[in-house]
């Protein structure tokens, strides 16, 4: 375990805006706009569907659960990543 006074805290947003990064601020705006449109489309569909069918059995938005241990891979000390 790292000591508290030796913590590193990188600003992750720099990866979105730095010159050597994959996308620049303008692209972030475009992505946000696209996600907004997608969000509108999906929310409209959700509202229209009224109820969810069995296909949603394990999807978060359907009002059901992450099924136990099958929802992610890490599981802390039991994890494929180990405990860092």
């Amino acid at each position, binding site marked *: *375990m*790292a*000591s508290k006074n*030796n*913590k*590193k*805290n*990188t*600003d*992750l*947003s720099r*990866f*979105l805006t730095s010159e050597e*990064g*994959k*996308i620049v601020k303008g*692209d*972030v705006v475009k*992505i946000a706009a696209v*996600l907004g449109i*997608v*969000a509108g*489309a*999906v*929310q409209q*569909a*959700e509202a229209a569907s009224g109820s969810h069918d*069995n*296909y*949603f*059995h*394990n*999807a*978060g*938005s*359907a*009002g*059901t*659960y*992450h*099924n*136990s*241990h*099958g*929802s*992610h*891979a*890490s*599981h*802390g*000390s*039991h*994890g*494929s*990543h*180990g*405990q*860092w």
Partner: protein
Amino acid sequence: MTLLSCYKPDKTGFFRHRRLAGGYLVTGDTGNFDFLTDREFKDFLSGCVKPGSAVHARLRDAGFLGGGADVTALAAKWRRKNSFLFGGPSLHIVVLTRRCNHACSYCQSGSSASRSGKADMTRPVADRVLDTIFSSPAPALTVEFQGGEPALNWPVLSYMVAAIENRAAKSGKKVIISLVSNLSVMTEARLDFLLKRNVRICTSLDGPQALHNANRPFPGGNSHAMAVKWLKAIKKRTRGGAHGDALVTVTRAALSRWKEMVDEYVKLGTTGIFIRFLNPFGAAKRVWASIGYSAAEYVAFYGKALDYIVELNLSGKSSIMEHSARILLTKILTQGDPNFLDLRSPCGAGIGQMAYDYDGSVFTCDEGRMLAAMGDEAFRIGAAGPGKYGGIMANPALKSVVTASVTDIQVSCASCAYKPYCGVCPVYNYAEHGDLFMHQPGYRCAVYMGMFDHVFKLLRNKKVRGLFEKWANSKPA
């Protein structure tokens, strides 16, 4: 004439493709797919697929032909496949303590530095964590207790289980409680308490005793014996063992022992086996030379293990299911999505799950929380407590991770045939490559590519396809 020179874009819908098993796999954004022979693929590209033929009907129905796609149906499927986007974080991982009584080869949580009770969650912190968990708009929640060994902090574990029941009743939210434990400090009384409250219990079982205990040394005890003893007890006391499950973490020592590993689970009578690969960072990286392997080595191992499981099923010797394959198959074969947080776009970090350390610190995900345990708090998004949820969700780190895990903007993913089913991990990218975005060549990508290749190859066999349809449509315990 090359394939590219015969391609007529106006004759096809949007698709991605991959050379596979002597032909071509074609996939679309909704997850629809088809296998084509070289000739069929060439006809498809050039717009020469004969109307009225079986291939034409398949390609038309899947939306791969230009002009004739049922856009309404495809859009509906796309919405269902992505419906997880608006549910809010439903998985909440709570680290009750960093203490552990094991010294696993791929883990350092049992280090002497973390043996004191100072690394335990307290009741006041537990209350603050629950305040944040129940602030999530998700109508259904899963609270997963982890560590360290969470049962070493039994007073707070039992306190939280009872508190969750009360809060669930008041809020009207449905809640599943899950305990990830090595089961070494389980007792009859504790098991009674957990099963009466429908707590699902998960442990590690890395295979036969020698392999398991080599991976998971338990000073003064026998880790394998304890895991097997309590898995059997859970199975006996619940219908089909529905509240007990086990995970395999594959180390180098297991690569040649795929059959023994599967047989161990068959012998125990578990409904499934969840085979998972090691990632070459964190604690595992320091001992990678002794426990690690290449992506190709893992894919070869996984293929043999999955083939054996399929063989056991088709011969009627067992009905055991492999959960990694089940997750991929649910994405490939059904109209829905299993909401496996590691394989989503964006990934589940922050918007599908949150992780809470023993001191109430909140992280985007379990991986981000583990990175902090190594001294880097880049993925910390706040502290749990009343009224804190909005600030946590607005945290720039969370927004950055969500943006960076959209597969459409990863150079390698955008054109990959497996994009509709896959996902990236910004924490992995950050730890391995010093960037939130995926770099190639990458181990994680190669592992998943290999797993998808194998599953799709098996899907070409009609008998296996029948079995896989059953797996894909099953509900895990």
